[in-house]
């Protein structure tokens, strides 16, 4: 086979591959309004009808705050923002500080997992059954919400899950057009992911709280391929929760 024919074949195969990857719903790209962050995103914005993982290096690193800040522009489209709060700790005022209107917020609180509350009395088997039931209910709720076209964005905290669940979420958002944002711990970085985007957030240590706090954001994985290896630095003003672009 000559080189020209080979190149032609590769091009046609590439076109077929792109066509097969075409989603069932129209995917839109919504800019976050944070220019430094948009610059490192593969399509210079966050896609709708996708699963996005926000990996928090540690607790208290503002990954969830950044997720809320990035989700706000998506609310220009119809649909609500659903927050799945299985630990019953979500404080809506903090999300409001990122520009999220509370009237568009749907709060879903499945059975409280035993993480933050002491386990109820009973045998170990019964406690494990309860935890398993609670996790199943959370996953079921995420999937049901992801299937609903009346929802625009879902934000949920998900520590551990299986690839089957992630695949089901992916299929659900492809049909419904919902964007699922999962806040996950750094332990999942070593695991494969079905997410469209995986974003790693960490904050720099600062000894002076009067100085601007910096968040370092890195895109670890993208289905469309990484734009470049750079990171974005976002600033968070003291005494204000709002995240500003670097």
């Amino acid at each position, binding site marked *: 086979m000559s080189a020209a024919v080979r190149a032609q074949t590769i091009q046609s195969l590439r076109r077929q591959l792109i066509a097969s990857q075409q989603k069932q719903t129209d995917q839109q790209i919504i800019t976050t309004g944070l220019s430094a962050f948009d610059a490192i995103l593969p399509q210079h914005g966050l896609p709708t009808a996708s699963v996005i993982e926000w990996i928090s290096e540690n607790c208290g690193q*503002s990954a*969830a*705050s950044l997720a809320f800040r990035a989700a706000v522009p998506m609310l220009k489209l119809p649909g609500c923002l659903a927050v799945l709060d299985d630990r019953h700790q979500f404080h809506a005022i*903090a999300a409001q*500080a990122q520009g999220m209107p*509370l009237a568009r917020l749907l709060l879903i609180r499945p059975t409280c997992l035993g993480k933050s509350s002491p386990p109820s009395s009973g045998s170990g088997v019964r406690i494990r*059954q309860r935890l398993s039931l609670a996790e199943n209910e959370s996953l079921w709720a995420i999937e049901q*919400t992801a299937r*609903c*076209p009346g929802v625009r964005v879902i934000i949920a905290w998900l520590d551990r899950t299986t690839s089957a669940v992630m695949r089901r979420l992916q299929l659900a958002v492809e049909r419904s057009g919902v964007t699922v944002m999962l806040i996950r711990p750094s332990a999942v970085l070593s695991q494969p992911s079905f997410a469209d985007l995986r974003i790693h957030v960490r904050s720099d240590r600062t000894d002076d709280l009067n100085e601007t706090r910096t968040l370092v954001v890195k895109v670890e994985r993208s289905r469309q391929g990484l734009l470049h290896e750079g990171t974005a630095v976002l600033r968070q003003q003291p005494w204000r929760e709002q995240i500003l672009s670097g």
Partner: protein
Amino acid sequence: MKRLLCIRFPNWPVQRLLRQLRNEGNPLTAIAVHTAPARNSPKSGQGDSDCDVQFIRRYYPASLNGPAIIAASMDAWTRGVRPGMPLAEARSMAVPVVRKSSQKRSERRSEKSAQQPTAVEFFEWQPHRDRAELIQTAELLRRYAPIVGLDSVPLPDCLLLDVTGCAPLFGGESSLAESVLRDLRLAGWSCRMAVAGSVAAVRALTHTDSARRLTAVSSKAVSGAHTDARNGRRTPQQLGSAAEMTELPIQIIPPGQHVDELRPLPVEAARLELSDLEILQHLGIRRIGQLLSLPREDLPSRLSDKGVLRIQQLADVIDEDIQPLPEANPIAADWSSDEPASGMNDFRYILQHLTEQLAGQLLRRHVACSRVSCEFRCAAGVTVKLQGSVVKPTQSAELLHEVLCLKLESELTLASLQSQLPVSAVAAASDLSNGSPSTALLLSSPVFAVRLVAVSAPIPPSRQKDLFSRSQHLVPEEELSSLIARLSSRLGSDAVMRVTPQADVRPENSVHCLPLLPPDASEASPGNLDAVLQLLAEPTSDDSAAATCLHPRPVRLLATPIPIASLDVVDGLPRRLLCDGRPFELCAVSAAERLQTGWWTDSPCHRDYHQAVATTGSRFWIFKDLVTGAWFLHGVFD
């Protein structure tokens, strides 16, 4: 525009009893109704009747110590019997009123007055029979309106009819009302009616003594009434003449004018709680007009939640719907078989079959379903009940089937967890001790019959869809309502909520989470739910409003603050804390933000909040309790 008819039966317990006695051939007119003695109080579990008894105990404190009068006929009233009076005192007071001066005048007027008045008869109050009779009376009125409901307050004495669009069928609203009045009088009832645009308005109009109209009474009747006022009693003749001159059994308020008609009425007609009425009395607020002119933002801090809701209903800000009474011919579907059913697969199949039947009946009757109740009849005659609700009334068999199956699955799973044995081996692990069999019975006992009953509701208005829109088949509000119904069925109605900010300095109380689908579906107002769904789903120009909070708040707020060990506090500031089971060394702590509540608050808060940064860069929200001096971790800036 909505039009509602309220029919009030004044002094309902007495009226019901008098009619019953007349039917029995007992022409008593002087009767009084009293509560039962404490040892004979109605058994618990009668639901609405319990509410009535509790209300009477709050309203008449004398009923706590023994039987007390709750209602008296006019003849008994003139003999000194008053509601709220202890029974023993009433019996002693129930002597004929004989005054020499008045007796001479009455002798001159008529022979009737000269006759010896009869003694007062006392009867025990039967709240459940009062309610049952009222519900039975509602059946007489089914032909006038598609929806007939009972008043939602304790001690109901009125019926509510939704006559929107019905007036032309009867030749106008006045003809309709006169026809209703005629039917009720033929049945032996006396009543007052009002037609207006809201439940609050019609109820207030019918429950107000026509004080305004007494100003038009002739001076003779007024002076006659005042003559006996020094004795504290009015004669029945004068009262009767005044009433006949001024009492209007039917009031019809033109559309859009009911709020103005409410303004001169007393606040007692506003269905407020007793505690709220006391507060308003202290503030000198006597009329509904004064109540409506109060600034709305201050009301939640002064009145109860229900009081605020009532005021909003009076002002027509919040819509209130009538909760329909179950029909004598309900929409129901039954299944029974000699081959019993067991297991989730059988139940799913049966429920699918029955929901299809229900949907067919809903279509034929041109109504929708907002709630469906399901009864499983197990062996030995035990019945297990379930209920499923939807956000918007629906005619869809699929949605009803899904809601019921989700409810059944979650109940069965919970029941199997609560028992000590695994799901497949549960046997009679039910709490029959309180008389209510739980769904655990379904796990072990075969089911021989299933019955579904639908609560009908008006079909919600359909939305015209854009044929040429790219997403023409999607209506976010309708999709959301289906999602909320499914989530509420499986997770519980209190698991799906909307959030509103609250003016409270305590961070844990700064937001109020309201279930979208109340546990008791009868409390759900379709109009309000539609408005909430629209707010949730549709973007508006106000969505980009900036946050008003000037101080940072953590995304994660712990339900219970975690104490920081005193050993970790050095030089008055904490240096180390535990979060999610891991230790964090703190390197910086910000200046304090003081949050304090007023001294009158039930659970006061005196705290100095700080942001604390750990060596890993993690940020926490900690506070020092100014009363105890202890440090706590309250939030994490996730």
